[in-house]
C-alpha cells in the first residue's frame, strides 16, 4: 500500500493528479490541502532549522540531557506553529484574491488525456485488485 502510493507520487505529477481528481469531483479545497501540504513541508522544515539555529544562538540547550532537550521543545515548536498560523491567514487572503472561492466551474491549464489504453488498464487493475482480495480471502 505504502509503496504503491510512492510509485503513484513518483510517476504522476502532483498538479496533474490534482487537476484530474478535481475534474472527477474531488472538492477543490480538499485538493488544495493535499497539494499545498506536499509543497509547504520542505519550507516548514527550512523554517524549523532557522528557529533551531536562532534559539541555540540564544543559548537554548538542544543537545545535552533528555530532560533539558524535552524542555526546549516549547521554544522551538511555539514560534513554528504561531508563525505558520499567521502565514495561513495571509495565504488565505492571497488565494481568495485570486478567486479561489469563486462559484464558477473551474478550468484546468493542463489537458489530461484519458486514452483508451488508460481506460483498459484501469479496468484490468480494478479486476486484479478484486481478484487478489478474493484469492486472499479464499486461501486464508
Amino acid at each position, binding site marked *: 500500500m505504502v509503496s504503491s502510493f510512492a510509485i503513484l507520487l513518483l510517476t504522476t505529477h502532483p498538479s496533474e493528479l490534482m487537476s484530474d481528481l478535481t475534474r472527477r469531483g474531488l472538492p477543490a479545497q480538499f485538493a488544495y490541502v493535499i497539494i*499545498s501540504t506536499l509543497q509547504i513541508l520542505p519550507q516548514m522544515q527550512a523554517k524549523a532549522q532557522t528557529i533551531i539555529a536562532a534559539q541555540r544562538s540564544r543559548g537554548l540547550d538542544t543537545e545535552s540531557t533528555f530532560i533539558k532537550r524535552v524542555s526546549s521543545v516549547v521554544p522551538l515548536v511555539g514560534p513554528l506553529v504561531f508563525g505558520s498560523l499567521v502565514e495561513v491567514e495571509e495565504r488565505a487572503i492571497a488565494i*481568495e*484574491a485570486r*478567486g479561489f472561492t469563486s462559484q464558477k466551474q*473551474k478550468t484546468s491549464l493542463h489537458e489530461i488525456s484519458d486514452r483508451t489504453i488508460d481506460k483498459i488498464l484501469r479496468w484490468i487493475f480494478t479486476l486484479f485488485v478484486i481478484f487478489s482480495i478474493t484469492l486472499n480471502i479464499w486461501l486464508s
Partner: protein
Amino acid sequence: MAFVNIKNLNYQYPLTKTPALRDINLQINQGEFISIIGANGAGKSTLCYALAGFVPHFFKGEFSGTIEVAGVESNKSTLEEWVLNVGLAFQNPFNQISGAKYSVFEEIAFGLENIGVPREQMKSRVEEAMQLTGISHLADRSPYSLSGGQQQRLALTSILVMQPKLLVLDEPTSQMDPIGTREVFGVIHKLTQNGMTVVMVEHKVEWIANFATRVVALKDGSVLLEGKPNEVLTSDALMESGFGVSRYTSTAREAKKQGLWKKEKLPVTLSEAAEGFNSK
C-alpha cells in the same frame, strides 16, 4: 463621478478598542497612481484590505460608510465578484505563492483556473502578463526557487493576469533590495502608463516623488494630508507627524534655516536637491 469613491469609511477590527479607520473620504480617478504613506498602525494596510473587499467580507468587525469602484459598492457585492475588479498584492511575496503549483507558469494560471477561463485563453493571458512584468524567462522555474524580487513580480503577475480595474499594493517593495525595488516600480510605472489605476502603500519617498500622481498621508486611521507628492512629502505637518521624510528634504529644511537653500520648494529626490543647491 470618480472611479473609486470612498465615503465616510469607518472600520474597527473585532476584539479591538480603537478604530483602524476613521471617517475616510477619498476620490480616485481612473489612471491615477495614489501613494499611501503613514507610520505603523496608521491604517494603511486596513485601507488596502477595505479597497480589496477583505474588509468587511473577510475581516469582520464594525464597518460603516461606503466604497465604490466603477459604480459598484463593496458591501453590496460578494468577495468573489469583488476580486475580479480589484487586485491585491502585499508585502511578503512568499506567502502570496499559492503553494498548489509547481512552476511559475502554472502559478500565474491558478487564478484563471479558479474563475473558469477557457484553456486557450489562459495560455495567452499568462504569456501576456509575464511579458508585462518581464518574467517570461522564469516560466518553468519553481516559484519557491525564485529570489524575493522575482517572487514579488510573480505575485504581481498572478494578480495582473486577472485583469483587475484597480490594483492595490500594500508595501510590495518592503522586503526588497534596490534592484528588486526598481524592478517592481518599473512594472507599476508601465501599468499606469497603460491606464491602470493603482493605489500603493510605500515608504520609499524618493520613488513616490518620481511616480505617484497623488500622495495620501494617514495618521491614526484618518487622512492627515492629501495632495501632490512634493507638497505632501515636504510639508511640515508630515515631518511633525513623525513620518520618516526624505533625507534630502530634511537636509534642505535645515539649510533653509541657515539661508543656504534659496528655493521656496523643498526637494524630495537627490536630483531635486542637487539642482536646488546648485542654483544661485
